[in-house]
């Protein structure tokens, strides 16, 4: 299953993933209407964590054994046969049990609706809006089993250099 990953070395923390997520999950899908007109306000299904210089966006990891699905008291959290964890809004009672159990902070509270929202990998789109709109290609979509190769090759940025420094003593 393809999942969203982030290359922290090139994430600038601009927040456009958040903006694009809000637009994609708005009724109108129009950026101005989504931010200015729509009520209740559409909520981003991701959070941006930042402690300079590190920043990254956090969205649902679509776990193999999702604790949010186990914890949900109303059957609103479902993992489908493709492995995508869905949230059915109509069934949600807003108990926030899923928020409590999620280790990643991948379930977001929608204050306007007293419910939760979470990443659905933009089922209507080929590439999720956050990935497509990332200006620095920090977010990417990749098969889970391929991610290790990418990590190994990725020696850019501070972490990469630290890794290199450990590998090679100077001269």
């Amino acid at each position, binding site marked *: 299953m393809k999942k969203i990953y982030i290359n922290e070395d090139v994430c600038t923390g*601009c927040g456009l993933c958040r903006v694009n997520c809000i637009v994609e999950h708005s009724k109108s899908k129009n950026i101005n209407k989504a931010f200015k007109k729509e009520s209740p306000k559409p909520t981003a299904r991701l959070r941006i964590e930042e402690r300079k210089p590190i920043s990254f966006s956090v969205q649902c990891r679509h776990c193999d054994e999702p604790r949010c699905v186990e914890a949900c008291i109303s059957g609103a959290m479902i993992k489908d046969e493709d492995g995508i964890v869905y949230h059915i809004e109509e069934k949600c009672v807003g108990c926030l049990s899923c928020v409590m159990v999620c280790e990643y902070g991948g379930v977001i509270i929608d204050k306007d609706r007293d419910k939760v929202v979470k990443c659905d990998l933009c089922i209507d789109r080929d590439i999720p809006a956050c990935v497509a709109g990332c200006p620095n290609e920090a977010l990417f979509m990749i098969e889970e089993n391929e991610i290790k190769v990418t990590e190994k090759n990725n020696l850019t940025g501070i972490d990469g250099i630290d890794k290199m420094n450990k590998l090679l003593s100077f001269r």
Partner: protein
Amino acid sequence: MLSCLPAKFKIVRDSNRCIKCKVCVQQCAYEVHNYDAEEDEIFSEEKSCVSCHRCVNMCPTQALTVVVYQLDYVPNANWKKLDIMRLTEQAESGGVLLTGMGNDLAYPIIWDNIVLNASQVTNPSIDPLREPMELRTYFGRKTNTVEIEMGENGIPQLKTKLGLIKLEVPIIFSAMSFGSISYNVHRALAQSAKDLGILYNTGEGGLHKDFYQYGSNTIVQCASGRFGIDEYYLQQGVAIEIKIGQGAKPGIGGHLPGEKVDERISMTRMIPTGTDAISPAPHHDIYSIEDLRQLIFSIKEVTYYKMPVGVKIAAVHNVAAISSGIARAGADFITIDGFRGGTGAAPTMIRDNVGIPIEFAIASVDDRLRQEGIRNEITLVASGGFRNSADIVKAIALGADVIAIGTPALIACGCHVCQNCYSGKCNWGIATQDPQLTKRVNPDIATRRLKNLIRAWSLEIKEFLGAMGVNAIESLRGNREHLRGIGLSRNYLDILGIKEVGR
């Protein structure tokens, strides 16, 4: 003290479009945009705006525009706005005016007064999409004679070892040090040079060990500060350049402020962390052509005479005579940097008033070396303000062998030529070492863009060649018959060695 300096730019925010997403606030290293939670508004402190367009480009709703702040001073042909502002700035700071990038004054750009030829009827033009077109260029000293021996199978073979570097296009990347530009940009330059079969230049900041893998496409530089230089470093690349001067600041040294010298740069430059890296104006061991010859041959000894050793000078008066001396000192290539060449930091007055345009430098150096019969011994690299493929074609026809591009490469990586490279706050993550900002250049994207640029230019150069009816860049090199001057004085035409249009 009341500052009498007005803002240089004005930010126009279209409130109908602004969605207050705060991307501009997060992206501006100059802290121009600030979000006021109480008012739920974003306010802009324009005085520190440098018009780098980071916020404009990142804004998801195109709500921002940056315009020149129109504050008109009393019209005065002598005391223009720029002069008054600079003077006021100095009265407030007491310091030398600093700037980045190349000379931005309205000196004549001679490239725009030179036109190229094309074939009509009497000799056919060539379609580069149908016919092979050769841009390959060899870099280094070309011998006077070659020896040929009969091979075992009866096929003649070249006996002389040429020791030349093969470039797939006659374009290389100019010297930009790791320190003046970020690690990620350096990496993108190295990677794209390798992929394109061209060269990049380490600049005077040494070579980070991560880049040793790109050695086959590296020119290593030896400048007056001698930062990061040891025997091992000199052997890493395929060519070595002794930097005497730089077009943006001829006769002036360099200064990398201590705050930019982090652990990585300290290791690369071989200096303690946090110390200023000061390159003296002269090489303290070079006071004559003879001294230069000693350094050239010291370096050749260290590298076992395996690689070309060149000298980079700024285009100044008497550049032809100096180049002749450099050639006779044993250099294999000369890089001449015109006065529009860029820099990470230079005193504004020096940048804008010292040196000569590269067009005249190429012509006079090429003429002089030809007259002395030593043109083949030198690869002439020209740099300084090349803007497009037409400039490159004209320069090659004028007599340059290879063109080095710095600013175009940086623009490809995202630079918007705001000329604030010296501030260390480059919003595009290029001329900075701030870990928060350097991430803004994704080396993979930058590599892709650099490769696109060189590919696009090489396609255009092939079109020019085809139109002129030649199928190899070698047939154009130094062929000034393909050039004509328009709107140039008799003296200019004479120095450039080209005819007037219509002749």
